[in-house]
């Protein structure tokens, strides 16, 4: 269900530490329902762990996206913003931004796949 190679937050984001790419989890997309809108930051923006990096909106709700780690926005997936409904079909393949981590030690606080699965049980 949850890729073993990713790390997860209590706020339902995933991050692939190998590439810095992040998105929201399958659990999050199910809670939101039909996703219709995505607001993403500019490349180069610096973010702190737990700070808002964007917004994801479904027909019925608005949800903030938080940075799993501190760092700099290295990439933004503009294609996904054009087709935000992709998140409903493949949440773990739908990366929103890539973050270049400022402090690799921060990643130690993140959940692994088993811990995240337990959290959302």
């Amino acid at each position, binding site marked *: 269900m949850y890729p073993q190679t990713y790390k997860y937050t209590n706020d339902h984001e995933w991050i692939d530490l190998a590439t810095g790419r992040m998105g929201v989890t399958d659990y999050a997309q199910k809670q939101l329902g*039909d996703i219709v809108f995505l607001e993403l930051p500019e490349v180069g923006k610096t973010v702190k762990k737990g700070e808002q990096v964007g917004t994801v909106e479904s027909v*019925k709700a*608005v949800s903030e996206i938080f940075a799993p780690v501190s760092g700099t926005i290295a990439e933004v997936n503009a294609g996904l913003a054009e087709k935000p409904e992709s998140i409903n079909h493949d949440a773990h393949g739908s990366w929103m931004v890539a973050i270049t981590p400022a402090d690799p030690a921060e990643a130690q606080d993140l959940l692994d796949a088993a811990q995240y699965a337990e959290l959302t049980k």
Partner: protein
Amino acid sequence: MAVFAGWDMPVEYSGLANEHMAVRTRAGLFDVSHMGQVELAGKDALAAVEHMTSNDAGKLKIGQAQYSGLTTPAGTFVDDLLVYRFATDHFLFVVNASNMGKDFAWITEQATPFGDVSAVNTSARYALIALQGPAARDVLQTLTDVDLGAIACYWFAHGEVAGVRATISRTGYTGEHGFEIFTPPQSAVRVWDAILQADRSADVVPAGLGARDTLRLEAAMRLYGNEIDDTTTVLEADLEWIVGWDKGEFIGRAVLADQKARGLSRRLVGFEMVDRAIARHGYDVYLDGAKVGTVTSGTKTPFLKKAIGMAYLPVARTEPGTEFEVDVRGRRAKARVVPLPFYTRPKG
């Protein structure tokens, strides 16, 4: 599931957008049994109904229904409702579940001076199932002897559906062709299952409160608590078509007549977002930098795939094309007034 007015309600079944699209292209089935029913009967029933509702119930033939307002002396809404004429001196009100308690108290109070009329809360006698969408008639026709093609918009007929006693009403809250079916509660599940199994090729899907809200928004149908309440007048809500000016006195008429003569200060409009953003219920609306109101309803809807909404604006600025701003979580996003409704079903 979500609790709404004391009812455990399905928000969505297979997904809001899927259900919304099914209603626009095939058919969706809604359980709206939470809606409240009040019946007024007696020789003076018509006079009482004319007194407490804004539309002209005297124009209703037996077997016909109308959208109306249950008005306050200020010309605002106690509730909005459908008024059905069951017989010369027998009417059925269908009201919002969330208002049922206050509505029934208000209706009873208004009816009492009329003498020969009794108001009865009959909500427990009816389950209400809505089948909405272009395939609704063909699907339902397989389950009833009532000639559905002969039921015009806002008319109803009594008969049976799937062997169950039912009143079939050509009404709905989706902007789509369809029917609402009143049945005894103990038989409602039988009717529900029969409709879902009637015609597998039609692919009727169960639809929840979520799709009901986005469908009615596209059709610009007002929602009590959003567009209308006891602070908004019938005219401000741009519903003059439910004011029976010719029928004489009714509660709130004087205020409405005065408002019509002097002109409104604000009116409900429809809008589309110009900037890339979604305006939602409660977001503040700005004109020339000043806050002038709030968004009453708004989202990006599944069929039109546009961020749309409704809001009250100063009447001088309600012309289609007028631009204003919505505060979307701290950012001002541009919106433009457009004519209502957003969606009209294709004729034919």
